[in-house]
């Protein structure tokens, strides 16, 4: 660990921000086209973020500010750990548990800040977000657990590298088809896409955790959302779709996967939060357990594969 690692880490953050924000802008256009609209400019998301950063803001006390900083700090640290096409700013720290739990620091910071505003909508939103997390994470973690058992590695980078070289057939989403479906459904839940977006429902609970943010706080939340999207999509991409051998392949796959979730989201209504929990604990959980048992007891898909 030397100064270069930190420089790389900072560059990763800048690159990820530009890439993901552009992609979000493009996806806003995709959503618009689904709704037969012309849609926003592709750089609209940048304008929105910079506009928010430019405005004045209101603060509800030190925890409101501290939580926002802690959230963005935790999320940015997680972004630095994500391996992108074999590149890691801090090699060897890409353990899947580290990534998924360091992500939780950011979420906790955001939840803390939101609840610290004293607004009941924010607390309701946080309660829903945490419930949603409990719903989607269990099936996903079971599949990831199976993968760690089968491949004897918990490093995201190594797991991604192991899938390369066989084309599509090497992808874990193909080797473990049920697990792949679970992962994509869980990705929708992670990203807060419809039908699992009840925690930020704008008309129902006034956008939940975001209710009191304005100005730079809101700008922070938008930046945080971009980073969080990157972490979540990258995690699924690396674990189930083989990451990418080159940076271009990675970006292409990433764009396809992310746009796919947007398209699904664009045609879906919204689940109530208890319906989301019921859904996740019925269909994806059953699929994840079946997948786990198949892989652990028969090795089908991992040990028995060509």
């Amino acid at each position, binding site marked *: 660990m030397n100064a270069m690692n*930190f420089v790389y*880490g*900072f560059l990763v953050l800048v690159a990820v921000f530009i890439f993901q924000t552009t992609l979000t802008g493009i996806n806003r256009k995709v959503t618009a086209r689904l709704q037969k609209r012309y849609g926003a400019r592709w750089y609209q998301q940048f304008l929105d973020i910079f506009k928010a950063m430019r405005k004045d*803001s209101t*603060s*509800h*006390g030190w925890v409101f500010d501290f939580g*926002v*900083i802690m*959230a*963005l*700090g*935790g999320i*940015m*640290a*997680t972004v*630095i750990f994500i391996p992108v096409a074999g590149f890691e700013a*801090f090699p*060897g*720290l890409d*353990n899947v*548990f580290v990534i998924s*739990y360091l992500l*939780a*620091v950011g979420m*906790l910071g955001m*939840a803390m800040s939101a609840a*610290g*505003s*004293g*607004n*009941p*909508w924010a*607390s309701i939103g946080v*309660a*829903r977000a*945490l*419930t949603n997390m*409990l719903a989607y994470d*269990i099936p996903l*973690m079971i599949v990831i*657990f199976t993968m*760690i*058992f089968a491949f*004897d*590695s918990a*490093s995201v980078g190594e797991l991604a590298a192991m899938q390369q070289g066989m084309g599509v057939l090497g992808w874990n989403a193909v080797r473990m088809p049920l697990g792949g479906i679970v992962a994509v459904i869980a990705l929708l839940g992670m990203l807060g896409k419809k039908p699992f977006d009840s925690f930020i429902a704008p008309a129902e609970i006034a956008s939940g955790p975001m209710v*009191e943010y304005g*100005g*730079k*706080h809101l*700008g*922070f939340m938008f930046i945080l959302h971009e980073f969080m999207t990157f972490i979540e999509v990258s995690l699924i991409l690396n674990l189930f779709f083989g990451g990418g051998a080159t940076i271009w392949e990675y970006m292409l796959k990433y764009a396809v996967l992310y746009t796919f979730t947007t398209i699904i989201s664009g045609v879906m209504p919204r689940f*109530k*939060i*208890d319906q989301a*929990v*019921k859904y996740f604990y019925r269909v994806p959980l059953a699929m994840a*357990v079946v997948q786990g048992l198949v892989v*652990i007891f028969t090795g089908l898909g991992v040990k028995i594969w060509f």
Partner: protein
Amino acid sequence: MSIAVFLAILIILAAASFFVTAANKKAGGFATVAVSLFALAMVLSMKGSVGGEQSFMYLGFSITTVGWYFSVVMLTAYSMTSFFNPFWMKKMIYPAGYNFLYLVSMAGTIGMFFAGDFITLFIFWETVVWSSAFIIQQGKSRKASYVYYVLSAVGSMATLFAIMLAYSVSGTFVIRDAFTGLAGSPGTALVVFLAFILSGLSKMGIFPFHVWLPEAHGSAPHTFSPVLSGGLVKMGAFIAFLSVTAFPAYEIFGDMLKIMGIPAPIYFLMLLGALSIIIGTLMAIKQEDAKRLLAYSSVANGGYILIGILMLDQVGFAGGMMHLMNHALASAAAFLAIAAVAYRTGTTKMSEMGGMIHRMPVTYLVYLISIISMAGIPPMGGFVSKWLVFQGLADKGLLFIAAAAFFGSIGSFMYVFRPLSAVFLGQLFTRDKDVREVGFFMMFPMVVLTLLTLAAGVFPNIILRVVTEIQKSAGIEPVTLARNTIVTTNGFLDAFRVFIVFGFGFAIAFVLFIVRRKSRKVGLMDTYTSAEFIHTPELLHYSHSFYAPFERLYDKAPDTMNMYKKISAGIAELGGLVEAVFYGGKPAKTIFWIMAAGMVFFLAGGVFR
């Protein structure tokens, strides 16, 4: 100093504290601080004399690394909590008795961890159970004490039975030898194993014995709950440890049915651990009282510790042993933080408080860091130990237990966030406008525990080095440690670097935050209410039934306590029937039945012989 003399001094000091308290309550409280710190210092200095065997009359002691480790955990909880004692004396019914029993139970735990034979172990175990039962009684309800005592007694009696049974086979009480003699008879060994671990399960609050934790933790005096959760629950972990190391469970049950390489009896106990993680999590989510919530979280964390210890391998075992320390630190700090809030507001009900962060910021930070550790989020200690447990489970492919562990881990975000949001964040109630932060003396132990939690997360190898010694003494391969790194077969963890990168991210975010214009400060009541005017903070605070939509999904699930109540009602009914039939108020009737029963026994004896 030999252990016996040390314990004798502690008991004498305990008696002395009784008289000091009778003379002056506050001085008595400070006496417990002095004595427990003295005990902690003594035990810390005993690290050098590991391996010694001592005996005093019929008591036998042996100083082992694991005993030392457990004692340190226990005495940390005791000594840090004791700082609260002087300030709570006026709220106690029997302050002198409380101080006396506090120190006696502390001495008892030391004696138990350093016991060299089972009789010593059992004597000190019972000392702790009895003295703590009388302390719990001084809290909110007497019923809690009964529940605690009855469940402890079930475990204790089973353990005594196991010890005697083992003695009848192997002819010795010495911990190392008593169980190894059972290898020849697996049937007896199974009975001994299950009966022996029963007291550990009941103490750790493993399903179905978890009912005592919320009762006892929830209604014990606020100064004793941290000890119960941070310390005494870990006695069960010690029994679990003995059941798989002193009792060579993996070897004796080696021929039995194996599930994923784990012998069936051990797998069954792991399933109980997994079940208590799930039940503890689900129940904690729906509690309305902060202390009961934390008590259920102890149930869930007890499950992790049990699973980790029972794995008895390179990684998972280390995780379980380390989690014991991390949970003790975090849970003691969380209970102390709630006690500090209760000291100022007089309640632990979450819906009756709010916005305490604006009045008690240090207490808030203490609670925050302890729950981060409890939920297993980096960079706190709890993350490292849970990471090790997950790695161990993934290594073995124990799918269902891992699913429960993940459920408990994510579910813990839900329940630990609830007191944070309801008690510390949100609207500050009008009643609590003038509440002050607790004084330095109460803040000190909380801050120390918090710093220890952070240290355990950033430099986990300090604790893990002790754990490797324990692993070596238990005859298993120790977990591989590099300078700052923990290496497992599935990858490695460098907690220090994770912390540094987190600090790096935080620094960038902080700079980005302060370069932008300073924000306008507004009051808590100036929030978005759909433009409605609200004047009462209490109405604008969301804390009751926090996870209502989620709770609704399982509110019809059967309750274990109700099951016990039904059993107890059934027994009472049976007793009533017996009483009505055999003791109908007429002595002649009773004599008739006694004679009839005697005749039946006599005849039956004749027939079966």
